[in-house]
């Protein structure tokens, strides 16, 4: 900072009006100040609404309409949370989401890595065709074929069933999972696999005992990507799940939001929101690095 900026100005002192006094000491970087301000304001805009939600979840309806959005609640009572848990069924929605995402991510990872392994490492007629069939799915938004998807689920008796939702999550996650893992498997060395073949390991054993352990970093990234994506899915459950006790969290929250409007139970809605955001903050605090790496892995290859 010092050597770059002071040398030219020192040489030009005679021609220019006398520099301000602080020029001689540590020069304050004006861009630095603006930069700090901009970053700080965006951070404020990011956490502001979340803090507001957390504060409001302790407030009564009257306090929420008091025109002091960031005022502290009069008492830190947990009544709203208890109501959100029991009356608004946020706990049920939460467990439904956990159940669905656990199975659908596991299924996506197993089936996706199996397909990707075969497509990346074996030559056979139709290999390119199947690969491009999977990858072409990336070009189209999920909502495009919503009506026929509903028809298919209906014909197969999969409407309003967890099994149906899980299977559909898996099907729609395969495009990206296969695309990502094929590229990843191709980068892994062939030598260890060949050594295992010499040792008499069959195809299946080679996949589970040699390839998967080698591919761990890629598998973790894509697993995180799928967990976040499926946890946050909203469109598919809205179409598939119809009875309220089977709603997943995103659907449930949207539902609470609508009924909060009718019954004017805003505190309950904010408590439900806080309860859904809190686990994300905890998970993010613990796995911040892995999550950032996992979610950006699709973009940096």
């Amino acid at each position, binding site marked *: *900072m010092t050597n*770059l900026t002071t040398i030219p100005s020192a040489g030009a002192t005679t021609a220019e009006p006398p520099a301000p006094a602080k020029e001689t000491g540590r020069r304050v970087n004006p*861009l630095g100040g603006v*930069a*700090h301000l901009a*970053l700080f304001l*965006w*951070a404020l805009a*990011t956490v*502001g*609404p979340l803090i*507001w*939600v957390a504060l409001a979840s302790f407030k009564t309806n009257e306090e*929420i309409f*008091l*025109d002091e*959005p*960031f005022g502290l609640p009069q008492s830190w009572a947990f009544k709203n949370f208890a109501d959100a848990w029991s009356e608004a069924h946020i706990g049920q929605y939460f467990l439904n989401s956990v159940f669905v995402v656990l199975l659908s991510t596991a299924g996506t990872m197993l089936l996706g890595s199996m*397909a990707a392994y*075969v497509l990346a490492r074996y030559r*056979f007629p139709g290999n390119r065709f199947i690969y491009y*069939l999977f990858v072409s799915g990336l*070009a*189209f*938004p*999920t*909502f*495009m*074929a*919503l*009506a*026929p998807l509903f*028809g*298919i689920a*209906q014909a197969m008796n999969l409407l309003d069933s967890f099994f149906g939702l899980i299977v559909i999550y*898996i*099907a*729609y996650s*395969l495009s990206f999972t296969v695309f990502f893992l094929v590229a990843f498997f191709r980068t892994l060395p062939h030598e260890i696999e060949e050594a295992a*073949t010499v040792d008499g390991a*069959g*195809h*299946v054993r080679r996949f589970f005992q040699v390839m998967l352990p080698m591919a761990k970093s890629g598998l973790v990234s894509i697993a995180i990507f799928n967990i976040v994506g499926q*946890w*946050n899915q909203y*469109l598919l459950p*809205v179409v598939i799940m119809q009875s309220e006790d089977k709603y997943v969290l995103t659907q449930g*929250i*949207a539902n*609470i*939001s609508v009924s909060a409007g009718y019954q004017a139970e*805003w505190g309950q*809605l904010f408590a439900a929101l806080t309860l859904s955001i809190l686990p*994300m*903050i905890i998970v*993010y605090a613990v796995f*911040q690095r892995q999550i950032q790496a996992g*979610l950006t892995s699709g*973009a*940096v290859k």
Partner: protein
Amino acid sequence: MRHGKYPFIIGFLAVPVALYAIFVVGAYLQMFRLSLTDWSGYGTFKDIGFDNFVKLWNDEVIWTALRHNGFLLLVMPIVTIAIALLFAFLLNVGGGSKGGMTRGVWGSKIYRVVFFFPQLLALALVAVIFQRVYGPDKSGMINGLLPDSWEPWLFLADEKWALTCILIVLIWQAVGFYVVLFSAGMGSIGQEIYEAAALDGASRITLFFKITLPLLWGNIQVAWIYLGIAAFDAFALVNIMTVNQGGPNNSTQVLSMQIYLNAFKYSQAGYASAIGVVLFFLALSFAWLTLRVTRSDSVEA
């Protein structure tokens, strides 16, 4: 290796390919078939030729939705990328240079962690939060913060501003992800390039436009595609936040909402499929255009 190769390949591919073929490829194929029928979503249907497409051409709401999608598709990526580039630059080299080393501003790690967090929240959750943030009375966060004497702003209930409100939420959620993505890209640009340029007397603004931007071009293209997909969907936001699912007076209507409404609310699943078919060709041309642009770029480089 040789014996049992095909049974193994078939065994590994059967389930993933079957799931994908039924729920994704199957839905896309049926979409074409159903677009020529008067299917309501339940029961039987009959062929009506190209009636749905004629109706579509004359449907004002579809054109409005298409215009809104176009607006989001154009503005959302540009603004998000611009803000993210600026923040990533400030975080990485905004702190000026010390002993010839450019560095990020103070606290850049914390900023990165905070900015990224909204990416982890489900869009449905974000939609519910911001519906309250934009609340049209004093219980809304923004109206609560405005001076008491002001009339409350209507936000989502105001035809003129509703779509902009949606746009702002999309940007709010997306920026952090691209700050992290671009930061990773900038981190891989060698320090010595910046040092050399700084020794030549280049200002920070020159550094940004002459060094950072060209070297990040690949990342920016990826960001463009991802943001385009996100801007094109927007279903969760429009369905949850807006007045009357796309209102007021269709001022926030988008194609995803139109497909959903026609398929599940207006009992016009055949018509919803026809909208899907149009979307199919739009997405295909977008993908084709993207491939062409990125390919011609890589030849130049």
